[in-house]
């Protein structure tokens, strides 16, 4: 299928640049705001993400994941890198509100949209984990908080935080690989 917006961007179609901006601008903007220390960095982050999207658009494979997921993956990689690169070495502590949001006892309603089958599946699996495991994984994924920040915020030992995040995500992937299209990706 070569008619996705990303593939048309990869083909150098000017109208596709505009479509991509309008279709995913809100998503990218929301991610950038969530990951940025300093709101003045958000605009630069968004632009950096779109440049990365144009360049990597040809890699998008609709058989593996939705366009939304691909865009979010590229955006997250850039934002995580930016956090490290331009954090000015500030170890910003998560706010109480962030901790509360990430550790909310009530299960987060997974997005049931067809565009994120993998995400909906992963959330179902996540809910099977113990609450503290769910909490650190949410904190890690939603804000890219460092293991140290999570340990500080939750009072958990650093090693435990790392274990929860790494083993939790690995377990999800292993399970996904046994049942979903991720396996195709691994076997390429």
């Amino acid at each position, binding site marked *: 299928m070569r008619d996705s917006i990303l593939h048309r961007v990869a083909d150098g179609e*000017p109208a596709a*640049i*505009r479509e991509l901006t309008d279709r995913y*601008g*809100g998503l*990218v*903007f929301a991610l950038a705001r*969530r990951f940025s220390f300093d709101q*003045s960095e958000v*605009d*630069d982050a*968004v*632009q*950096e993400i*779109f*440049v990365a999207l144009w*360049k*990597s658009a040809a*890699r998008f*494979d609709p058989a593996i994941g939705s366009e939304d*997921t691909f865009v*979010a*993956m590229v*955006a997250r*990689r*850039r934002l*995580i*890198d930016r956090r*490290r690169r331009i954090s000015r070495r500030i170890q910003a502590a998560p706010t109480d509100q962030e901790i509360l949001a990430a550790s909310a006892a009530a299960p987060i309603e*997974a*997005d049931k949209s067809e565009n*994120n089958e*993998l*995400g909906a599946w*992963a959330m179902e699996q996540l809910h*099977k*984990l113990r609450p*503290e*495991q769910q909490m650190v994984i949410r904190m*890690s994924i*939603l804000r*890219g908080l*460092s*293991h140290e920040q999570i340990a500080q915020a939750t009072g958990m*030992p650093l*090693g*435990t935080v*790392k*274990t929860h995040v*790494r*083993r*939790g*995500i*690995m*377990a999800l*992937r*292993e*399970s996904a690989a046994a049942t979903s299209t991720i396996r195709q*990706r*691994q076997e390429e």
Partner: protein
Amino acid sequence: MPPTPSQPDPRRDDSTSRRGRAGEPGRQDDGFAGDLDGLDSISRLDELLIDRATVGLDASEEAELRLLLEQSGRTVGATGADDTYEMLAAAMDLAMQPPAKGEKLPVQLRNRILAAGDVWLNQRELEAQITGSRSTRADARVELLEQTALLDDRTDTGVLARIGGGMSARRVIAGLRQNSGWLAAAACLTLAVLGWLRPTTTGTLTGQGGPSTMATAAQPGNDITGQPAADDVSTRLARFIADNHDDLKLLPLAMASTAQRAIGTIDEPTEDLVGPPAQLALAATASPVGEVIWSSTQQSGFLRLSGLPSLKRPGDQYQLWIVDALRDPTHPVPAGVFDVPAGASEVLLPVNAAVRIDHAVRFSITVERSGGSVTPSLDSLVVDGGEAADQGEQNAPVSVEEPAGGTHAPIKVNGTTGS
């Protein structure tokens, strides 16, 4: 299988996993539910891939990951890296916090992205046309820059990304096409970018006129520090390019309405702007030629200038100004004063702006009294700045600036597919 709860063991810190390597068993607790239970080890490779998908990696971890990926042969498609964890994290991110329906980019930011997209498409066009035209010397420069930049496998190679830097490629093309052999000229621009690593006279810009002092103003009043500092500045430049290679743009020297008068009388105090735009200078060897290589993230850069004579009147200094597309063009940001020692053919100076510059598009130089001034002495600065630049491509030969609003075409130095 039912969940197998277990208490976190505080004694199990990260040292165990940090010592681990690919294939080495890790911890076996945590009691994942159902079909997650079969997991019994985490390799160092998986740890790094998961960390990359969540908290990011530092340089040494990136290097370790690359090595482990090579050893494992665990590559995915053309990317050379396993991104399945990143995809999973992205899908979970979207599921946990889907963006609000109808959320849009702010109009100004949207326009900025579209302008940058225009530049990118033109760069692709230019790239397609010059592929294969790079000279042996250019290849050598590329290789040197790639080595210096420590090969970031997340960035794309693009000859085009190196050409033009932060300039509008369309305008570069339009300007160059007015001359014959624009491909050769484009190659010259490539070399101009890549030539940033060549040795030269180095010095220090002394800041003034702004709310913050410049980091490089260690020797106030002693601007060109000469040989003892040469290696230091060159080393800093190399490190700067390596550390910021995906966030660099080249700022052209702005055209002053009275540039030729200024150039012709520069040895006399004229308090005037000097310098034609870069590509005009290619044909006018007697004119100052220079660029600022600038990192918006770092809010710093380096100025390289040649053909600028030393000032003869005591108490005069050159002052560097950087034009921010989002500021009043009559108020460029002062970026320090400097001297050019007699006989110096070229100077290389670290640059820091007095205030934050969000959309640096070009720079100018004036002659000021010692210490510089807060605003440029020449009222006609606006003529060289945004107004002329915004008149469209008919001005291409003297307008290599970016479109208003700024673009951010990064200088990429390496080759695999990017994020």
